[in-house]
């Protein structure tokens, strides 16, 4: 298709191939992998359903010393950091005008939406008295100084309103090209309004996660001395936010490279190096604040005491420091395999920072042991699998993954049960379309 392909050592083409979101149209929908994850998701959700009618104690090994299990500490506090791609990329693209990044926004948005929504499902089954959540509608019951309030209001709001709004064009685009003429007329009428309110939604879509991602760190301030001093710090809200940006960027790189490899898509050197560069900067920013904070609080001796906490601290920061330094090199950024490895390291380092303070470094004086029970693990895995299944369906039915626009003529895979027919691709070269002047898309979704 493309006439200017060059292959690097790993066999991946590295000329710019990403112009727009293009659905994956030549792959089977129900692969064995998808069925596997669907099964785990089904088991997890079925257990969550049973949990609705059963006390928490039967389903988890949480106890009064470790009142927060992995649903909160991993599915919510850690994985929403990976789901902060829309925040990090969005700010880079719309606030700092990194125009190249618009093409990968949809990948970030869909993954972010799924991380948040599955995290919120986890939260819904984790809280003990969910029926009292109606109080969120009555602001006079709000305790305005509680970080937990900020999270319990802002996270659902962000996911249900702002992320959903940003994901909406995916659906409208599909409806436009697959729907009836009446649908097209309607969408043509609606599209300008969406574009008019879009920038206002963008403001909310960045301010609100800035608030709740920092509040996740703010939560832990009240835990005080229960958290090891290497992590317990007044800078935790800022560090949690920076870790979210770092993880968001790293995860989008990881996801793009994984999907492009899986679906044999070509890559785009400009976008990937830009992302690699931003990731390196985010890592340096995080490490800078982390080091200043450690020095400021006089904890340097604890950092190099080489006890278990110190080693954990060193591992975590080394995992972030390696990609920070390595990705300064242009050759590293331009080699997909190396970029992938570095992004993976940053992901692990960043998520470790978000996970450790509530779990490994969380040691109440009357400490008991906590290790998630099997149902707890299955439910956590179920929520994650749900996200994987939904993402895999999204890239096949919607124009999510970035691709070459010459490969796609706005034909979407029809939605059918189990045996989706191979889509009939209307082969019409762009040149022909141009010469005909067919602007079949005044909707511009």
């Amino acid at each position, binding site marked *: 298709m493309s006439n200017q392909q060059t292959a690097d050592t790993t066999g991946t083409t590295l000329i710019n191939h990403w112009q727009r979101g293009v659905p994956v149209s030549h792959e089977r929908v129900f692969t064995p992998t998808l069925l596997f994850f669907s099964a785990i998701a089904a088991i997890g959700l079925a257990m969550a359903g049973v949990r609705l009618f059963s006390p928490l104690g039967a389903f988890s090994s949480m106890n009064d010393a470790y009142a927060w299990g992995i649903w909160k500490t991993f599915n919510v506090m850690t994985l929403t950091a990976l789901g902060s791609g829309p925040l990090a990329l969005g700010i880079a693209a719309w*606030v700092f005008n990194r125009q190249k990044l618009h093409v990968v926004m949809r990948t970030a948005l869909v993954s972010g939406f799924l991380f948040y929504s599955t995290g919120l499902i986890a939260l819904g089954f984790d809280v003990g008295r969910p029926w009292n*959540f109606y109080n969120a509608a009555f602001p006079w019951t709000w305790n305005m100084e*509680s970080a937990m309030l900020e999270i319990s209001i802002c996270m659902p709001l962000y996911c249900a309103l702002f992320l959903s709004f940003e994901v909406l064009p995916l659906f409208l685009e599909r409806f436009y090209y697959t729907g009836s003429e009446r649908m097209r007329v309607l969408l043509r009428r609606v599209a300008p309004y969406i574009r008019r309110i879009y920038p206002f939604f963008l403001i909310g879509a960045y301010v609100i996660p800035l608030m709740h991602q920092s509040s996740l760190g703010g939560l832990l301030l009240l835990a005080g001395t229960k958290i090891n001093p290497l992590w317990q710090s*007044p800078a935790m809200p800022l560090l949690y936010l920076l870790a979210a940006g770092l993880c968001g960027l790293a995860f989008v790189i990881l996801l793009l490279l994984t999907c492009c490899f899986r679906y044999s898509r070509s890559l785009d050197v400009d976008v990937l190096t830009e992302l690699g560069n931003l990731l390196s900067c985010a890592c340096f920013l995080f490490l800078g604040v982390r080091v200043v904070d450690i020095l400021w609080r006089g904890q340097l001796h604890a950092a190099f005491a080489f006890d278990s906490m110190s080693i954990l601290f060193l591992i975590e920061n080394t995992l972030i420091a390696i990609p920070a330094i390595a990705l300064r090199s242009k050759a590293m950024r331009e080699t997909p395999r190396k970029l992938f490895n570095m992004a993976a390291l940053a992901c692990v380092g960043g998520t470790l920072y978000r996970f450790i303070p509530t779990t490994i470094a969380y040691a109440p004086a009357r400490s008991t042991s906590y290790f998630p029970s099997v149902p707890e693990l299955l439910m956590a895995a179920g929520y994650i699998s749900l996200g994987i299944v939904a993402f895999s369906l999204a890239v096949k039915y919607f124009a999510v993954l970035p691709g070459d626009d010459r490969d796609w003529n706005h034909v979407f895979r029809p939605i059918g049960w189990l045996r989706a027919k191979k889509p009939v691709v209307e082969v019409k070269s762009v040149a022909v379309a141009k010469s005909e002047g067919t602007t079949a898309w005044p909707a511009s979704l």
Partner: protein
Amino acid sequence: MNGILNRRQALKVMAGFGGTMAAAVLPAKAEEHPAHPVAPPDAIAMLYDSTICTGCKACMPACNEANGLPADSLMSGGIWDMPTDLNSKTKNIIELYQDPNAWKAGEHVPKDVAPEGSDFAYVKRQCMHCLDPACVTGCPFGALKKGEWGAVTWNSSLCIGCRYCEVACPFEVPKFEWNNWNPKVVKCEFCFDQRLKKNMEPACTAVCPTGAVVFGKRTDLLAKAKDRISASPDKYFEDRVYGEHEAGGTQVLYLSRVAFDKLGLPKLSSTSLGHYGTKVTSVIYKWLSGPILAAAVLGFAIRRNWDRHEAERPEREKETGFPDQL
């Protein structure tokens, strides 16, 4: 120039007027979470003197009875109340501390051999009713609140069961009913509804036969505790009252011969956790000024870049032959 204000004078007058107005309109409220909170004059308290307590545990069934709690008989084979810690059936517990060196298993060390004050001591544990409770600061919908006389109480209709109170409490007091479909947060509430409102003192202090735990105003009990310390110097650990300053001060005060941390009373700084947890956010979120400012700055940049993007859109669409994707 007489009679007419020049620009500078006018500004001065306006600034002065504005300042006066602001001072009059805005309430001159004290800081919400001072580092070292001061107890209000009507604050009640409990004083527990570990040197007087004989470990009779009369306070435990009294507490259970007053609060309608079942006996925790798991460890006793279903016979009597035998909790191992504060839990969802136990709001008040007497614990025993034994010096592992003075009391080795199977070997009785005579009292005069063990170093003075290291043998054993009882400790009563219940909610400390902090002057600035971390659980109240963290509770999202205000289910936990510090009410009249300073008692920290729990409201079932506001609690969502997030268990942040358990994470926040430095004394590890609030407990969650893990085995209840409709779980409650269980903690000592100073017998607020059960007894205080009816003009009775809490069940534990009312029943204590030795006067090891007594009820009164915090100022009175603090003075009483200091009197005991000065009456018998060197008797009490560090010659101080635990709870006077811990975590910003608590409404349960302790005297002990044995080190407080050995009794399970944690070493805490005198700064309240509420102050530590909110000193930055209270500035950022004051009148939502931080988020509004962020929205203004981001909005300015987004608007500019959006307009630029939209202006270039027709040309870009024409060039690529495809519509712009959001």
